[in-house]
């Protein structure tokens, strides 16, 4: 009797949130699959006469080819951001873990870039990297360049600039998670290594990095998931341009659905993105499980 009551109470506590998520997240995921198998456009959205087309939306997208390019861009963007964020985040974590005065406070300040709306970050970088922005102005004044660089107008540089802006957002996330992981490494390991004559560099590669491995792995997986779905930043800085050079999966899906009103093709692109995230997500859960067992 007591046990039944206990069960019911547990479910009652969880139920409202669960129902909400099923309705506003679960249903859209299923509906995305339906949308991608039908032909839904702005003409038949209200009438409901939407023909079933099977996998036509997917084959059309892949035959047309832009999606392959966009997938490649998104992977390149994600990989570049992950590497930069990680290296800089690790460097800052090591610096602030030296434990000098103000270290905590300064580390806290770096967090701001992670908390800001991406819209604002995008706007700032767009302004700073404009052809008459402060970056070009400074480089010109230092005589490092002869004429202004078109950061956001030429395709290779546009990708570089977008990566830079996203790295700025991602650094604190890497730094904080690595700092936290570092504090769990017992001090005496370092002390005994120092007594044995290990240099600081050697201690870093032989002790710090190996012991941080689990934290680093989950950091990279989470970072992948957060970076792969980039949207606001790219939409504002380049709108996917010039000529799709910085078009990402999410901005491409948005473009198809809400600028060309091809809802079904937009849904199909979203599903491809979802598939990638799902694979990486499963990987992450496997990692978590292994860590918990250890």
């Amino acid at each position, binding site marked *: 009797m007591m046990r039944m009551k*206990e*069960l019911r*109470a*547990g479910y*009652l*506590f*969880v139920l*409202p*949130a*669960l129902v*909400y*998520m099923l309705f*506003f*997240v679960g249903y*859209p995921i299923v509906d*995305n699959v339906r*949308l991608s198998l039908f032909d839904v456009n702005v003409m038949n959205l209200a009438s409901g006469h939407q023909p079933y087309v099977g996998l036509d939306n997917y084959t059309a997208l892949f035959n047309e080819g832009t999606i392959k390019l966009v997938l490649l861009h998104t992977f390149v963007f994600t990989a570049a951001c992950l590497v930069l964020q990680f290296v800089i985040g690790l460097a800052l974590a090591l*610096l*602030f873990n030296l434990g*000098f005065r*103000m*270290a905590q406070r300064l580390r806290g*300040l*770096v*967090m*701001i870039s992670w*908390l*800001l*709306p*991406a*819209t*604002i970050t995008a*706007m*700032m970088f767009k*302004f*700073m990297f404009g052809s*008459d922005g*402060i970056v070009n*102005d400074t480089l010109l004044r230092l005589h490092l360049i002869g004429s202004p660089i078109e950061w956001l107008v030429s395709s290779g540089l546009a990708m570089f600039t977008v990566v830079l802006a996203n790295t700025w957002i991602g650094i604190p*996330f890497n730094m*904080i*998670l690595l700092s*936290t992981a570092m504090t769990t490494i017992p001090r005496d390991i370092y002390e005994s290594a120092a007594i044995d004559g290990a240099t600081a560099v050697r201690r870093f590669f032989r002790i710090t990095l190996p012991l941080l491995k689990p*934290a680093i792995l*989950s950091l990279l997986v*989470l970072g992948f998931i957060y970076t792969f779905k980039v*949207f*606001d930043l790219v*939409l*504002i800085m380049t709108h996917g341009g010039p000529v799709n050079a910085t078009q990402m999966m*999410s901005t491409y*899906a*948005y473009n198809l*659905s*809400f600028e060309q009103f091809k809802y079904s093709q937009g*849904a199909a692109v*979203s599903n491809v*993105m*979802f598939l990638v995230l799902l694979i990486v997500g499963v990987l992450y859960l496997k990692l*978590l499980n292994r860590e918990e067992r250890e």
Partner: protein
Amino acid sequence: MKLLRRNVPWLLPVISILLVAAFLFPLYWLVVTSFKTEAEIFATPQTWFPRTFHFESYTEQLSGSSFDIIAGFRNSIVISIGSLAISTSLAIPAAYGIARFRFPGRHLFVLLFLVTQMLPASLLLTPLFILFKHMGLIGPSYWSTILANATAGIPFSVIILRTYFTSLPKELEESAQIDGCNRWTTFVRIILPIAVPGVVVAAVFSFLFAWGDLIYGMTFIGKEQLRPITAGIYNFLGFQSTSWNNTMAFGTVSMLPVALLFIFVQRYIVSGLTNGAVKG
């Protein structure tokens, strides 16, 4: 290294301050630009500090145009508070239920919340748009955006609050029940008051998620005057000749709540980030 640190103790702090200052330069540039005139913004060489402070980019936009700073700020506040209210009121009991009751499927629930936390907004956008359209919520209403933004706040809040509730001693509830409280009154009278720090983290993050939203606000809200401040910035940047000082004024205003929250609840935010993101 050790020798260096002992003899020059100011070296590390000074280097760090310079690094952090360089890192945060974009913020400085944003605020400074909002106080410049259009002519000064494009002067070469650029001025690192405004010659005189101009407040026109703020005052000009306070009224008059169809989308002014006050309207944008109000819209963002309404949307963020609304979504904060929904996500915390649903997430607190859910997190408590998962943390304290042993019922089959609760591990699956944790997993579900963990996965949904990672879903991109652009994935849900099209189906939600069609759903809200059928519900009649697309157009001159905040509701669609509030409801959509809560889907980001709920899973995050559940995950960090679950860790928080699990860390509270069980004896609290046991003694409350001996004193005659039932499950619900125990939760409301005993647990909630102690859980305030955890709830603050959840609330702050739910607020910030909604505050930073662009995609839902600009897609679902048909009426320009009701759109959040981020959508206003997006519109500004869409024009051929951007009026940068006005845009920067918008940016500075929308940075304000983030900065305030940051100053007051910084230590909570750090703990929230590490708990919510890694432990799961």
